[in-house]
């Protein structure tokens, strides 16, 4: 193989798998979020076609697929971020703990506090680190006074694995941190409003391998506490981080199953082609 001249980027070293990674959690309670027959139209163009998935709260669900296959669009349906796009139209039924999120009875602001989101490019507010984390709890009235707010900020930063690095400089600007730290700050910000579900849209695509590994470890630690759905175009990451994987292609859900099965013996031909790199 020394004679080939490919420029393959070596994938980062995967962490040593722990027993918990390989043991499948039993199918116990009902799913945290259910989506049925979701279709999304941007004007006349259909971006998603009749997608149905369950998101469970004790596992990480990964959405993979080539560019433009609709995985980010679907993720954004789960916290109604598609509402901010004027030409987008969503049909279908999504439930959070049994409540329909698109009904008039569900306040979209409250929904977004329960279903948090972390974006592809770290986007901390141009405020201090403390303010970044405190903003959410403040507008939702989660803290009665300064000491309670301090506690929330500390807890969120600790859970995001950032506390030790920033505890002495909480008043510094959030944008002065490195890319990986900024992303963890965004995760802390999402955690601070005490959500039930965390949606992550390609959270590591702008980060270097070490920062990526730290975020993946963080996702593993957060798994028991929040239901996590992660969109990623890096299949190895989906394999490392998730217990369930859904493969999207051209707006359709092709296959959804256990991550270990999808990556060792997928059922659908298109899934196999994509994950072995025969696609395109």
């Amino acid at each position, binding site marked *: 193989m020394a004679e080939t*001249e*490919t420029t393959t980027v070596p994938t980062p070293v995967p962490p040593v798998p722990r027993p918990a990674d390989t043991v499948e959690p039993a199918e116990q309670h009902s799913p945290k979020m259910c989506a049925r027959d979701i279709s999304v139209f941007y004007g006349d163009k259909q971006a998603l076609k009749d997608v149905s998935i369950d998101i469970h709260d004790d596992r990480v669900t990964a959405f993979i697929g080539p560019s433009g296959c609709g995985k980010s669009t679907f993720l954004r349906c789960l916290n109604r971020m598609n509402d901010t796009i004027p030409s987008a139209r969503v049909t279908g039924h999504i439930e959070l703990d049994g409540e329909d999120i698109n009904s008039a009875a569900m306040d979209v602001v409250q929904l977004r506090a329960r279903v948090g989101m972390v974006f592809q490019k770290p986007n901390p507010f141009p405020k201090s680190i403390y303010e970044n984390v405190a903003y959410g709890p403040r507008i939702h009235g989660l803290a009665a006074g300064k000491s309670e707010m301090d506690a929330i900020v500390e807890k969120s930063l600790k859970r995001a694995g950032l506390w030790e690095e920033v505890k002495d400089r909480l008043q510094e600007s959030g944008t002065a941190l490195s890319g990986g730290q900024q992303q963890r700050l965004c995760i802390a910000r999402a955690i601070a409003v005490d959500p039930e579900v965390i949606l992550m849209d390609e959270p590591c695509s702008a980060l270097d391998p070490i920062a990526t590994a730290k975020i993946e470890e963080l996702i593993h630690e957060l798994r028991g506490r929040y239901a996590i759905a992660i969109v990623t175009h890096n*299949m*190895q990451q989906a*394999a490392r981080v998730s217990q369930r994987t859904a493969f999207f292609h051209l707006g359709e859900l092709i296959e959804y199953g256990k991550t270990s099965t999808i*990556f*060792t013996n997928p059922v659908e031909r298109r899934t196999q082609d994509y994950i072995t790199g*025969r696609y395109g």
Partner: protein
Amino acid sequence: MATSSGHTIKAFDEDLDRLRALINQMGGLAEHAIRESMRCLVQRDLEGAEKIVATDKKLDALEIETERRVVQLIALRAPMAGDLRDVVAALKISSVVERIGDYAKNIAKRVPLLDNAHSIEPISLMPEMARIASEMVHDVLNAFVERDAEAALRVVERDRAVDDFYNSIFRALLTFMMENSNNISQSTHLLFIAKNIERVGDHATNIAEMVYYASTGQHLADRPRGHDPLKPE
């Protein structure tokens, strides 16, 4: 030989093809060694037997090369699903084929010790047994390269014939030894040789199971075995 189809990174296809070519090469050598060793046995070709022992080293070297390539492929290409199963199968098959080569070498080593065994009758069955065994090896490695699970299954069935041959030879040699105690040393060698060929058949079956798993992602259920002389009939 079926080439790996359509990875976006062409070098990945080339790596997998080269791996298959290696396995093919090893298989050819092993297969040839089995047939050659049987021919040398029948024709008392001492020189040929020495050559077989010498070329076994080549098989060992190829196995090491295969292992090296597999490790590199896993590290650099991160193969998934079918590709991963293929690569793991290639690793296991190479070690099995190397073993098969060792059996052929073992047979060749016994050739000088059997110079006046032409009078032993059971020896006439052995070329046929060896032929079946070497064909099994040939076919199962073809099945690997072609990723043909059905062909692998067919190879499994033929092991029964090999086992039956072995049982006959076993009984015949036992009788032969009981008739005349001068025959014991020759017969024992022949027994070992027969056992080696029977092992070759078993190994071919093992390879067939690996090929089946690599192609389909499922393991073969307990396969039908030949008559086990250790069990009461």
